[in-house]
Each structure stands twice: as structure tokens, then as C-alpha cells.
């Protein structure tokens, strides 16, 4: 487990805060409130940074660790925001044997983030995914809706540059 090199600064706004509080108040007394509250909190903020998890912990009177345990258990929950450009590298079998790991490594190096994270300027986020059904183009990566097939690691900086 490595700490992120870049931490996207959390920007709260009162309207979001109010919405979150409303959700907490709605579920507060219910058993099993944690997951619906976290889902809806993620809808508001796009991710679940420590500030949001702390607010949920306080609101539901649940230890922060318990929340963090749930957030890190389910892949649905994000600890980091998504960037304007969401990069997804396929690590499915076909892509993997065609070298998508090296493509991913190269992306990590170029963007200086780990899978799951987002650059500090929020322009790029990096994720891995399983088969997207384009095995004939392996290795494949997606940047938002743009599909890149037969990607060579050496091409990565060039591709990224198009979006900068």
C-alpha cells in the first residue's frame, strides 16, 4: 500500500455539504444505513475522500475505520476523484498477454499516479478494467470514449499529450 504522491485537494461547497447532511439525517436511525449513505455520498462528490468519510462517521456515529473498511472492500467506492479524462487500461487475458501491464506501467510513470488515483489538476484518472470485448485490438485502453488499440508503451506519452 503506497501513499499517493499527489493528493487532489478536497473542495467542499455548502450545497454539497447540505445534501450529504440530508442523506445522513434520512438514514441515521436505520439499520444498515452505511452503504446507502456512502453510495449517495459518492453520487454527490464523485468519490469518498477522508473529509466525506469523517462526516459520515460523525453523522452515523460509526468509527471512521469501519467506513474505510467498507470503502476499500467494495470496488464500487472510490477514494479518489475521477479526472476529466478517465483512462482505463484493460487487464483482461488477451490484453494482458499482449502487454497491457507495460502500458499501464508507462501510464503510471507518465501521470505519476497509481491505478485508482487522479492527477492533482483533476485532468486524468487511471483505472484498470477487465475485458471490454475488443480482444482483436489488444492491448486496449480507453480515454473517456476514445478507444486505443494495439497500444505500444512507447506511444503512451504521445497519446496523453493529445489531451493536455
Amino acid at each position, binding site marked *: 500500500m503506497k501513499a499517493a504522491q499527489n493528493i487532489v485537494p478536497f473542495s467542499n461547497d455548502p450545497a454539497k455539504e447540505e445534501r450529504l447532511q440530508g442523506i445522513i439525517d434520512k438514514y441515521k436511525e436505520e439499520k444498515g444505513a452505511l452503504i446507502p449513505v456512502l453510495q449517495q455520498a459518492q453520487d454527490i462528490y464523485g468519490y469518498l475522500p477522508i473529509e466525506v468519510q469523517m462526516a459520515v462517521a460523525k453523522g452515523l456515529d460509526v*468509527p471512521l*475505520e469501519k467506513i474505510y473498511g467498507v470503502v*476499500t472492500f467494495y470496488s464500487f467506492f472510490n477514494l479518489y476523484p475521477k479526472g476529466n479524462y478517465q483512462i482505463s487500461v484493460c487487464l483482461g487475458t488477451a490484453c494482458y498477454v499482449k502487454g497491457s501491464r507495460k502500458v499501464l506501467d508507462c501510464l503510471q510513470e507518465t501521470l505519476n499516479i497509481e491505478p485508482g488515483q487522479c492527477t492533482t489538476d483533476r485532468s486524468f484518472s487511471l483505472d484498470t478494467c477487465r475485458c471490454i470485448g475488443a480482444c482483436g485490438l489488444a492491448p486496449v485502453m480507453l480515454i473517456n470514449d476514445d478507444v486505443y488499440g494495439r497500444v505500444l508503451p512507447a506511444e503512451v506519452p504521445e497519446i496523453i499529450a493529445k489531451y493536455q
Partner: protein
Amino acid sequence: MADVTIKINNVEYQVPEGSTILEAARMANIHIPTLCFLKDINEIGACRMCVVEVKGAKGLVTSCVYPVADGMEVFTHTKRVIDSRVKNLQLLLSTHNRECLSCVRSGSCELQSLCRLYDIREDSIYDGEKPKYELDGSAVHLVRDNNKCILCRRCVAVCEKNQGVGVIGPNERGFATNIGSAFNMKLADTSCVCCGQCIAVCPTGALAEKDNTIEVFTAIEDPTKHVIVQVAPSVRAGLGEEFGMPIGVGVEGQMINALRALGFDKVFDTNFSADLTIMEEANEFIQRVQNGGKLPLITSCSPGWIKYCEHYHPDMIPHLSSCKSPQQMFGAIAKSYYAEKAGIDPKDIVMVSIMPCTAKKFEIGRDDQAANGVPDVDYALTTRELARMIKRANIDFLKLPKEGVFDDPLGKSTGAGVIFGATGGVMEAALRTAVEKLTGKELENVEFTEIRGTDGIKEATYNVAGMDVNICVCSGTANANKVLNMVKSGEKNYHFIEVMCCPGGCVNGGGQPKQPAEVRNFVDIKALRAKALYDLDKERPIRKSHENPDIIALYDDFLGEPGSHKAHALLHTSYITRPMYNDPKSHPVKK
């Protein structure tokens, strides 16, 4: 509850309906092995060590959570069962740091003993990728080594359910699952209260206190140091277990003799300063009652509880007694009164304390705990560390004389001081003194039995000098939380509250000898150890703190009155509001 008839290994038994197979087998004198199971708080059937065969059931069932049913046929040691347990152990070992030779738990490790029990010879057949975890030694009282963790979650259960703290839990999932704190914070940066209950229940060497035995041996050898030791009441109720004695056998005499044999210059008793605490605390209570001070007054002997209050209920700090704990009072008096009497520079005194507690390691480093310009206490060792010292010094503990006397002038104590170690003991001791002071009459019966026993929350009302005094005694910080919330909401109107951080009080402290889950689940350890203390109380010729002749002399010669200026300077302290988390900045990667 009605009985049901079941067969265990073809033998018929009547067992209460609703029992689990594990409990039923126990009644038939069959001890099914467990690892993750902790009665009431961790019944998750996760480790699958307790699997048994049930006729007609699809697979093996986990006996710890599987209820019996009429006509059930159970088999507890078939080849299938044993093969499964062996495989489970081998799988646990595949990621386990197997360096038993250097492990603090070697010899008392539950995993190790099961491996021997099932004759595991191939401990590496499932070895593959091994996670490498950094040790977390950030907290002053313990070290977590997740390379030895088997993910049983016993520590998680005590922390959340008994203590209401919940600063550790399982993070990530699958192979990456690890026990840690939110956002992978270091334990020291969380609101951990240092109670050490997690250590007490850990089956392996994944959790252990920070060991100070070498430092103490070194100090004893240093001719320029005057090394004195104080021993908390509960230590004598637990220490024998480390040497194979039954639970609940008091070993005061052997303990004193062992400490002398270790080479301490003076062997003193924390019971003495427990009596002193009562003098100050009873006085504080009377002052608050008579002068309209903040009530309820809440005891402050338990450093885990104090830290809990500072993190979780800082608004209640004004209610805390300003009295230092007996450990700290002892150090403050040893390095002033005793130093003066013995003609020793306080800087040359090394004050060692033996405590049933790991939070005491935190307490010695708190602010405002160095009354004489030097720390009141230099090393706080757990009961387990003392046992390690005795063993390392090759002392045959079991053969030591049962008679032993503490040194003067800080060794005499009353029955009131002894019972500090059991939940309700501090309150009872305080009442013995406060009631006599308030009424001016001698108590006919010094035993306040209503507040004895191991219930988590106890209440009583005593009419003292025309005033109804509402008392509450609680142990386990989860219970303390309940009590404080009732006080805040106005639901309860108490005058005096005793809080002990650990369930059952110090006898069940996080620094006490470890008992395997097999014992914990079926024996009330805290009640047995408490009985040893109440027995000692009964034997003491003096049972009220204010009648301790050495305490009287201490006030006459040195302190003046309880609550005097000098007493305040030496024996009282202050508290701070603590945040729940220290500046959490690093967001870790989620896999």
C-alpha cells in the same frame, strides 16, 4: 430452556436447546479447537478451525456458530475433519511469518500450539506470494506485526464492541485484507486509548506490548541508580498464571520475593498510593459536594479511560477527578518524600512500576506527570513483562516463600487499596473513607457489595449524612460511553462515577497474563482474579485508607492536609482535549 438429545461421536447427550455444537461438545468434555471465536463478540465462523461433521449436512459445519438440533449426530475427529483442520492451518501458515524462535508468543501462541496438536510437518506446502507489512510501532504501548496476523478479527471485536473505540478493522479485501486503521493511519495518530485489550486477545504474536525489560535490567545493574519498584494490586492476582498456577490464586508474597531477587533496591506497593488516591479523591468529592463543584465526579485512576474521555467526551473533562492515578502519585511521592527521607537525589531514582495495563506506558509520558522536575515514573511494565524478567533471571517462582513484606515507608496498605484492581473497588474504597468523613461516624460494615461483581454497569444509592448519593460504576469504555450519554441527556443523575477502561477493571487489564480463547470463552477470568483481591482485602487488618498509619504519617510529616497546596503540586494533574485523528494527510492507494 428445554434439552435436546444429540449424539456426539456416537454417544448420546442431553444438551440445552440453543447451544452451539461447540458448547455442547464442551459439556461432553470435548474441546473443539477455535481460532477466531470469542464468545459474544466475535462469533463469525471465519477461521474454520472448529469444523465438525454433522450427519446429513452438506459440508463440514463451523461448530462455534452452528446450533444443535434434536437428533443431530456430530462427529468431531473424523479423518475428514482433521484433514480439513490441517489444511486450514497450512493455508494460514502460507502467509504467516514463521520465525517462531524470535517471536514473543513462542510457547503461548494459539496458532503454534494448534500446529503442534495437528502435527503440521509441512508448513510451507502452500507458500506463494507473501504480503510484506511494515511493523506499526507508532503507539507507545504496542507493536503491530501484520506479518503474523491470521485475520481472526479478535482484536477488532474487543476494540469495537467492548471498548467502543473501533480504531482498527479489516481494510481492503481478498488477499490484500489487512487489519489496520482508517486511511492506513498509524495507530498513534488515531483515538486508540492504549488499553491493550487487543493484545490480550491476539492468538499470535501479531500484537505485543513494547517491552522494557532490558532497560529495567540495565538500570538495576547501574550502581549509580537507586531502582525502586511499585506493584499494582491486580498484578498479584494474575502473575501466578504465567507460572502455570490456576486463575485467581493470589501470589503477593512470591511476587515480593521475586522482585527482591531481581535486585530492586526497594520493593514498594502501589496499594499504598491507592490509599493516598482515596484520601485525595474522597476529599475532592466532599469538596465538590459541599462547595457546589462539578458533579458527577468521575474517577481518574485508569489512563485508558482518561484518554478515551479526552478523545470522545472532552466536554466531560471538568468532571474528571484531578487526582493523578495511583501509579503517578506513587512516583511523585517516591521522588519527593521518599527521596528526602532516604537522602537520595530524585534524579538518581529509577521508578519502575509493574502494572496490569498497557495504557500506563502512555500515562508516564503525559504532560503534567513530572512533579519533581523528573518523570514521576520511568518505566511501566506489564504483568507479562515482569513474568519475563523473573523467568530470564532463572527464579523458581513456584518455590518462593508465600510470605513476603513490602519495604517501608511506601509499602503498607489497607484492604481499600487492594480492591482498586476490581471494577467497583475504587468506589468502594472511596466510600469507606468519604462516608466516615461526612458522617463522622465509624462504618459498621465496610463492604459495599452492591457495587461488586463483573457487570459492565452497576448502580447504587447510599444515604450519607442525610444526602442520597447516587453512585455508578462501569467498566469497558463502551459502557462508559453509555453512562456518559445518560448523564448528558439528564436521564441519570449521579454524584460519583467510577470508570475503568477494561471490562471488569484492572484485573482484566491489557497487560495481564494472556489466556487462550479456549479459556476466555468458558471461564470468567475477571471474576476469579477479582476474588483474589477481595480475599486479600478481608485478610488485611486495616481496611480503610484513612487509617493507614503510613498515609497518616505522610500527611503529618510532609503533605499537610488532603487537597493542600503541596498535595496539589504533587498529586494532581490536568487533562487536554484530544482530536479523534492527528492530521490525516496521506490517502493510501486502494487496490
